[in-house]
């Protein structure tokens, strides 16, 4: 409870005391935006941790070996993540449902175990020291990025593109028979998701003195997935709320901090079993408004 009392009575003191937590919440919010984009187009992809790794490693390696300013490094990191997202998406996006999820998991682990741990420039298993880390200065870019990205993605979901994603999510066959180029729109969603995840990875190097390959495993992706599921994916705010809530939770209930994964697991099961509906899409409006799922089950 002290947590909330301080938040309202002494915001400045709260900020100073919890700077790293706030930065982490911001990063997780951006990751939540990243997974939201693919969710919104009806695809369960779990490659986010891999794209984060690309963004993070590119940024750090460039600041180690090239004289370019940091924002350029980060931009290159995010763009490289998007480019690799495109290449990975070419074969992978032909898959659906569980198979898509498994293939993207395969990508994350093959990248981490096969590439990062084997290429000398990434420091292999040792990780990389990050010369440009600035934990306190790094918070501001994060805090600015969150609302900007939220706004951009929110706008995007209201354009033609967003409507096409929603149509694909609800019924892929109907969407394609209405002239929507399903593979192309799926690819756009996947690449944007990779771009945002790569950017989050690049931003995160700001607040860490060290890039550690174990950070970018499937476990991380599943954490990100939890944000989206718990927050609901009707609109971009849902996953962000999920990210803020789940990142702050161990701080709020300190006595449960050791058992945070137990708490996360229980929340995940409760949310999914109580709100999941009979639709085919990964996520539906009823995920955030459970009362809507009470209609008669479809014949499918």
């Amino acid at each position, binding site marked *: 409870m002290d947590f909330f009392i301080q938040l309202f009575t002494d915001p400045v003191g709260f900020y100073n005391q919890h700077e790293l937590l706030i930065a982490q919440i911001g990063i997780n919010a951006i990751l939540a935006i990243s997974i939201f984009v693919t969710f919104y187009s009806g695809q369960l992809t779990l490659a986010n941790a891999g794209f984060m790794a690309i963004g993070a490693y590119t940024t750090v390696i460039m600041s180690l070996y090239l004289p370019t300013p940091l924002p350029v490094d980060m931009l290159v990191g995010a763009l490289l993540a998007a480019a690799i997202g495109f290449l990975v998406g070419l074969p992978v996006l032909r898959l659906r449902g569980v198979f898509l999820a498994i*293939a993207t998991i395969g990508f994350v682990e093959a990248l981490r175990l096969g*590439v990062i741990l084997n290429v000398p420039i990434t420091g292999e298993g040792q990780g990389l020291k990050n010369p440009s880390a600035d934990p306190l200065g790094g918070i501001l870019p994060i805090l600015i990025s969150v609302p900007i990205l939220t706004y951009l993605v929110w706008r995007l979901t209201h354009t033609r593109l967003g409507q096409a994603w929603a149509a694909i999510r609800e019924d892929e066959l109907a969407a394609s028979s209405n002239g929507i180029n399903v593979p192309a729109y799926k690819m756009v969603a996947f690449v944007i998701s990779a771009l945002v995840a790569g950017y989050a990875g690049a931003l995160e190097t700001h607040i860490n003195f060290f890039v550690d390959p174990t950070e970018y495993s*499937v476990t991380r992706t599943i954490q990100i997935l939890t944000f989206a*599921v718990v927050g609901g994916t009707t609109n971009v705010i849902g996953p962000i709320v999920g990210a803020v809530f789940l990142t702050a939770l161990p701080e709020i209930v300190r006595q449960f901090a050791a058992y945070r994964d137990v708490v996360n*697991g229980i929340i995940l099961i409760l949310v999914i*079993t109580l709100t*999941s*509906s009979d639709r085919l899409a990964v996520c539906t409006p009823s995920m955030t408004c459970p009362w809507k799922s009470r209609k008669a089950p479809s014949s499918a």
Partner: protein
Amino acid sequence: MTQQVLNAIFIGSIYALFAVGYTLVFGVLDVLNLAHSAVFMLGAVVTYSLVALHGMPFLPAAVIAILVCGLLGLLIEFVALRPLRRRNAPPISALISTIGLALIFVAIVEQATSGSLFSWLWQDGANSVRFPTGTVPNPTYHVGGLTIEGTKLGILIISVVLMLVLGYVMRFTQVGRALRAVAENRRAATLLGINVDRIFASTLFVSSALGGLAGLLFGLALSDISPYIGRDQVELKGLAVIVLGGMGSIPGAVLGGYLLGLIEVFAFVRFGSNVEAGVAFAALFLVLVLRPQGLFGARLRERL
């Protein structure tokens, strides 16, 4: 080289045993049970706990652990899967709810130290332990320049026998026929008077018992028992195995398990341990992209 092939066959049997349970649930329920690896881990942890903390001999401990894992399978069915089926939720939701259970199982073991809530189950937190020496007699045989450890040989025999039994049950018994009917068409099976919910529950029980057995054999043979053996050692490799063999196909999972064992051992011999770790995922990725029905061409309608 022959020694390496022997190792491949041995590690392959554990992969196969683990993957058979994985693929059984996918074939019958159409659900990817991501809590399977946590059950694998608990198979090893419960056996260790009974032997090392409660002074039980190995064999009864192993039997109890396998039964406990079977019951955990029922827990998965009742907590994570049945509520979703009642709501006609898409299979993807079940994937997410089983992730939730896996998080809980791993966190409980990981946080258990002496004096904590779960100290009766586990006291070593995130550390790796091994069975006390002499838990199981492990004679070593030397046959024409080959070294064969007794436990590994035993594991090979147990796995092969169990997989043969499972194959027999699936093909020639009433339960097996009911299972295949449910996998084929849930609604038609219901109309024919098969209790579908009971089939699902028994599938989860058998699958998890096999997973637990695989876990305790892994802990015994590789002397590595920790909260993370499921997640780090077999969860994703198990995925690779069932994808290699064709999702939902039991013979495919068995062959896939041995194939992955061989691929890994040869990658290790040829390129070293770093490449060995990544090769399973490269294989997984390639098979999914080039041949999603699996290497052995299981037709999607005839999976079991």
